[in-house]
């Protein structure tokens, strides 16, 4: 497995920017997704109204988060679904491994779940001798290629169809090369079909966990989520604590915005509502259902009113589709499970700012992400906040984000102090800008990263301050 580290972000970026095929794959795919989304929101007022409604739903649910989580647990248990709490990724893996071991499970089929990626469940289970097979087509491709998802909705979006054709030739017995999408999907599905019937355990994610009824909602397009959650005897769902919502009535608006924002679909092909395991007299369905609720830094974001907005996310991926940075560097360069704008604001809570300090600054703050976010997360504002936390002195209190000060460089801090000194003193400012214009011939031609692809800007002969001052003097003389 290729390991890409977030701490090597700068290096990863350089590598992926220089891969023209990768650049083309992302640009093409993001253009397609942006067009799809735009076609799904033609009524501006409807979009604005629904966005406001969904933002409020998520904010209301977050405000009541501890209470809703208790209510969810109570109702799920009443329905016969067992609930497990994991503070860390290790705990989540242990819980799931134990549940599988108890049933002597040897093989797992997985529906698409970013939280299972977050805890690196496949790696952990494989170490325990349990085979884990991804059944979402994109995830399946990524697993065959020994990679990680490069997008939270479209895991294999970094590969084009001919690359996938070659991959299938290597890994699927009897597959003759083709780059025809239908042929590729059919070949993949043939492999997966048998695996669903043979697997001991199904693992899925959850899009919305409804506290009022104890219902787990799962949004998907391929039917693999339904297979994973109904065919094997044991179904284990895993999700983050922020996915709890208060009531069933909250689902329709959120679902509508989720599918339209993600892929431009009015609704996904499948929408599963899982409320209990197989009941006496029923012929199918899992005999046992478990839900693992993961914290992994979410409660740190929750504790701060501003940063809490991070948890409003419904994982639609629209922010990455519209991000000019993501479009160019792709999803792997981030070295994080969640790439793109949402990854930049969510990952520091999971991994700390020491490891992730390059992420919040890797944005031009253009605001495209906030514009399309269906739940109104002010992503640029949260990036600014994380930049602030990243350059704060390490010892300053209160410590809101772990790894505070992880991006602080003493020289940079000093430069900004001097900058402030100059720019709050009109005299010093005028003196230094005058100096800059008079000594422009001294200005170096090489300005580091700026001049790798640009010429250096030339200071004017005189500043606007001076020119206006001179004009005013002349005016008075007249």
């Amino acid at each position, binding site marked *: 497995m290729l390991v890409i580290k977030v701490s090597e972000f*700068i290096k990863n*970026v350089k590598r992926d*920017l220089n891969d023209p095929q990768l650049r083309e794959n992302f640009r093409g795919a993001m253009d397609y997704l942006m067009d799809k989304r735009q076609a799904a929101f033609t009524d*501006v007022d409807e979009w604005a109204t629904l966005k406001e409604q969904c933002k409020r739903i998520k904010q209301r649910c977050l405000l009541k988060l501890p209470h809703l989580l208790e209510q969810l647990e109570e109702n799920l248990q009443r329905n016969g679904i067992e609930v497990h709490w994991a503070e860390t990724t290790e705990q989540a893996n242990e819980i799931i491994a134990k549940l599988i071991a108890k049933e002597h499970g040897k093989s797992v089929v997985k529906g698409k779940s970013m939280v299972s990626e977050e805890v690196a469940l496949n790696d952990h289970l494989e170490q325990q001798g349990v085979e884990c097979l991804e059944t979402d087509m994109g995830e399946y491709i990524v697993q065959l290629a020994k990679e990680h998802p490069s997008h939270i909705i479209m895991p294999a979006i970094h590969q084009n169809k001919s690359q996938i054709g070659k991959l299938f030739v290597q890994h699927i017995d009897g597959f003759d090369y083709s780059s025809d999408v239908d042929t590729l999907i059919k070949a993949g599905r043939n492999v997966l079909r048998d695996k669903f019937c043979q697997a001991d355990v199904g693992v899925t994610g959850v899009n919305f966990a409804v506290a009022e009824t104890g219902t787990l909602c799962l949004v998907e397009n391929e039917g693999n989520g339904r297979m994973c959650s109904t065919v094997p005897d044991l179904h284990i769902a895993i999700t983050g604590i922020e996915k709890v919502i208060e009531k069933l009535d909250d689902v329709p608006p959120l679902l509508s915005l989720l599918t339209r924002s993600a892929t431009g679909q009015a609704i996904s092909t499948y929408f599963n509502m899982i409320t209990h395991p197989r009941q006496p007299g029923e012929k199918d369905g899992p005999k046992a259902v478990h839900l693992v609720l993961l914290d992994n830094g979410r409660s740190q974001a929750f504790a701060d009113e501003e940063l809490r907005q991070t948890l409003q996310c419904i994982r639609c991926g629209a922010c990455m589709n519209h991000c*000019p*940075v993501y479009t*160019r*560097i792709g999803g792997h360069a981030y070295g994080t499970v969640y790439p793109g704008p949402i990854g930049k604001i969510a990952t520091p809570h999971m991994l700390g700012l020491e490891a992730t300090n390059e992420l*919040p*600054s*890797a*944005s*031009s*703050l*253009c*605001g*495209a992400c*906030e*514009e399309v976010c269906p739940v109104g997360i002010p992503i640029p504002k949260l990036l*600014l906040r994380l*930049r*602030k*936390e*990243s*350059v*704060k002195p390490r010892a300053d209190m209160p410590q809101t984000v772990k790894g505070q000060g992880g*991006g602080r460089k003493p020289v*940079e*801090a000093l430069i*900004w*102090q001097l*900058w*402030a000194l100059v*720019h*709050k003193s*009109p005299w010093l*400012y*005028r003196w230094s*800008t005058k100096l*800059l214009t008079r000594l422009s011939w001294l200005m170096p031609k090489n300005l*580091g*990263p*700026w*001049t*790798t*692809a*640009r*010429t*250096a*800007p*030339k*200071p*004017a002969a005189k*500043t*606007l*301050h001076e*020119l*206006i*001052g001179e*004009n005013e003097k002349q005016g008075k003389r007249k």
Partner: protein
Amino acid sequence: MENSVNIRQYPHKPAQVYLYGTCLVDSFYPQSGLDAIELLTKQDIEVIYPQGQTCCGQPAYNSGYQDQAKAVALHQIKQFELDIPIVVISGSCGGMMRHHYPALLADEPGIQAFCDRIYEFSEFLVHVLNIQLFDSGNKERVALHTSCAARREMGAHETSKKLLEQLSNVELVEHQYESECCGFGGTFAVKHGDISVAMVEDKTKHLLAEDTVRYISGDWGCMMNIDGALAHQKQPLRGEHIASFLLDRSVGDKGE
């Protein structure tokens, strides 16, 4: 059109305004400041340029040094004491002063009243002055690049287009990915130079594809980035500040 700009009540045409020149224009592109003043003066408005103004504080603010940004921002608001509009010839600095000062200077009395006096240049011409432009220039095709803050915080893409549409001999062409960021982003361009370069190279490619002599923008931050890349590529295309362009067209082609 998705727009986060709040609906705004515009005042009647004032007798006086302040001009906020921005630090970039001050040291690198002062002609744009002079042109903006001349254009406003032609509309019978007295323009006051406080000599104490420096920088809006955005560079430090965007780098996470909010205390330093705050000190500099506080100094700016003290330079504009009269209760008259403050016209900013950059959407990005305008967005900073109008939309980010309220949170940055939350404990400063009267801060909202100050922010309510901030107008981006094209916004001011269209909505406050209801300006009627006369085009005395030759036929020309131009492209427009609107900075992200100007677009998303100040709605300047709409007002800039309205101004250019008033010019009878000017044909505005839309370049591919017009709404996409040029990759400047202040210190981002230096901290994440590789990404920034990838973005500006795409922007220049799309602008060049329109085959115009100049492109128009209301932000010298973007233009410093785009022009720098164009010059590096030895391309003749250059940006022109919308204030200079409008003045140029209304007094006849300077080249004639």
